[in-house]
């Protein structure tokens, strides 16, 4: 049967409406509450979607991913606090707009450009995913190993902070992946006689610990009880007029293009894309002086850009098996459990899947847009929910969610340990992203490197142009931030002198 018909036909299941609705509600709420990230929510949802069919489960997870991108703009605009990191750039102009009595227009235009960006992401997925995976199907062990190195170094490069610490974090992930059976010989490694570790570190437990528990603990350890957020309650006009719509076109195009490129780069997410696009739109604007003071152009560029990364991220995740961002890293874990191994062979085995996923994304975008355009004034009161209750709910859900995977209290213990490790990592400046990526891709990296070396020694890597290309980009990803940092310091020194 035609993969398009088959893929879209899979969406005809009536129960899917329920899962899409559930995902939309969870995603919007997740985005709405600062401190609850999309990664955390998808990780939590993973635990109770594992029993569903792959399409139903994907519907929940993808809808959370998409709709959190709509919900996170609301606190960014109304209380100057990004709901998730992807809406950092929304605060630049969203909050000043709200302070100027234009919160209604900011919220509506943000929802519209977010939908435009996300829809463009679906087009990218439909057009790029299958050709990219066909190309990647030609990869041998050397290329696959270098692809993992490439993904890991990209994540280290973009995760900010010290590169060496990012590398250590990635190495910790790779080492954690060693625990359990050797992928080639089956020999037990670093299990210390604990039977539960024979299958390796439970991936979802580690993720929930690192992104759920650690995030909450970090917020508690640094919280300042003296003042809460000041919420804007005067919304003004809701719908933009003709001139304002016209004003949004150019920055939305800039944002969508920027976000698509950033999204395709493995590990680079909406936070980076939003900031880059905001800066680009300012450069091309006739009124750059308005940026940062409540510019409709600024908010359009930032929001369309961060939304359009989703399609690119999903494309690299599905076609190459290298997560486009941390949410995708979590999603890979679920897909593996469902028997869908993201990577070059995914679309060869399931050519219909890309159309199912695109269909789910399309419905999720429309649903999220509709809900976002409803004037839910009452929902704004949720922003005043005391954080103590929210933190407690997240912690308890992390525990039950972990238990639900294999009905194992041992795994809940592992999750708490990872929560502690995650907190220490954050406080010492080690990003958690590379560790998760290392944990996911560790076995793939090890088995392919050993196979490549067994085939023709180190020459199998050195003589492969693709592998060497990945290596070159990987080195650039590590070196470039150092060079740029040096250049910025030099500039600062020149200005000082």
């Amino acid at each position, binding site marked *: 049967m035609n993969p398009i018909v088959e893929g879209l036909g899979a969406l005809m299941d009536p129960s899917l409406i329920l899962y899409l609705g559930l995902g939309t509600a969870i995603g919007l709420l997740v985005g709405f509450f600062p401190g609850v990230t999309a990664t955390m929510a998808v990780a939590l949802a993973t635990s109770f979607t594992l029993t569903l069919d792959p399409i139903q489960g994907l519907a929940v997870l993808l809808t959370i991913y998409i709709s959190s991108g709509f919900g996170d703009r609301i606190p960014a605009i109304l209380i100057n606090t990004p709901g998730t990191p992807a809406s950092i750039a929304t605060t630049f102009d969203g909050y000043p707009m709200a302070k100027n009595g234009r919160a209604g227009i900011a919220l509506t235009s943000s929802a519209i450009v977010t939908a435009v960006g996300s829809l463009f992401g679906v087009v990218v997925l439909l057009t790029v995913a299958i050709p990219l995976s066909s190309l990647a199907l030609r990869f041998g062990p050397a290329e696959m190993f270098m692809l993992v190195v490439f993904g890991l170094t990209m994540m280290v490069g973009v995760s900010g902070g010290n590169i060496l610490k990012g590398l250590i974090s990635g190495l910790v992930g790779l080492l954690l992946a060693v625990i359990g059976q050797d992928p080639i010989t089956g020999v037990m490694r670093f299990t210390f006689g604990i039977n539960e570790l024979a299958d390796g570190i439970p991936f979802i437990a580690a993720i929930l610990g690192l992104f759920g528990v650690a995030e909450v603990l970090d917020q508690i350890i640094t919280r300042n009880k003296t003042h809460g957020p000041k919420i804007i309650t005067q919304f003004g006009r809701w719908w933009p007029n003709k001139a304002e719509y016209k004003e949004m076109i150019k920055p939305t195009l800039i944002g969508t293009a920027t976000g698509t490129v950033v999204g395709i780069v493995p590990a680079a997410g909406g936070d980076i894309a939003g900031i880059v696009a905001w800066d680009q739109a300012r450069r091309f604007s006739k009124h750059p002086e308005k940026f940062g003071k409540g510019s409709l152009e600024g908010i359009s560029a930032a929001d369309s850009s961060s939304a359009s990364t989703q399609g690119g991220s999903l494309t690299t995740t599905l076609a190459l098996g290298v997560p486009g961002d941390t949410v995708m890293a979590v999603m890979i874990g679920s897909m593996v459990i469902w028997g869908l191994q993201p990577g070059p062979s995914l679309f060869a085995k399931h050519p219909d899947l890309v159309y199912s996923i695109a269909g789910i994304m399309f419905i999720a975008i429309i649903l999220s847009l509709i809900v976002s355009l409803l004037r839910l004034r009452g929902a704004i009161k949720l922003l005043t929910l005391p954080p103590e209750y929210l933190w407690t709910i997240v912690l308890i859900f992390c525990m039950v969610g972990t238990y639900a995977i294999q009905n194992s209290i041992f795994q809940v*213990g592992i999750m708490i340990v990872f929560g502690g490790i995650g907190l220490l990592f954050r406080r010492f400046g080690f990003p958690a992203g590379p560790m998760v990526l290392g944990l996911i891709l560790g076995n793939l990296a090890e088995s392919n490197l050993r196979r490549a070396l067994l085939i023709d020694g180190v020459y199998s890597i050195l003589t492969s142009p693709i592998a060497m290309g990945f290596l070159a980009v990987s080195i650039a990803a590590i070196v470039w931030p150092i060079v740029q940092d040096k250049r910025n310091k030099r500039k600062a020194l020149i200005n000082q002198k």
Partner: protein
Amino acid sequence: MNNEITDESIDETVTQSGSVGKSRRNQIVGIFWALFGVITIFGGAAIQITQGANSELGPKFWPQMLGIFFLVIGIILIIQDFRGKIRDPEQEEITKTGLIEVLGVFVILVLQVIAWGFVGFLPSAAAALILLPLMLGTRKPIKIILFSALTTGLLYGLFAMILRIPL
């Protein structure tokens, strides 16, 4: 006057501005990872190889290689910190109350996991849902009890009744 800008002068300026080299804790971090690398190398060497497994590219190869990387990066971290070149991202400061609360929360979570094994999920979760907000500074008993009862009910309904997970 010599106004030449060298790498050293850049680092010195940034160090003076306070963003680099505020403490030497990264040296301890570097030493930790270097030692961790050594332990990993020895740990890798101690892996029992079954008959037929290639010794050079067998199960020991990868962990030992990672151990060498830990050692090398740990040493570079120490050297960089000595030279004042480590620049950590800006972070919110830890508060004293926050630290006490985190320790308390951690203890409650560990106790809940232990209690879960003995008394089951519902009583342990209900207790944790009372203790956690209390630990985090809420002092409204009726609200807390109501919150605990509602959340426990929600968890039971969602996981035990809808998803059929034996809590």
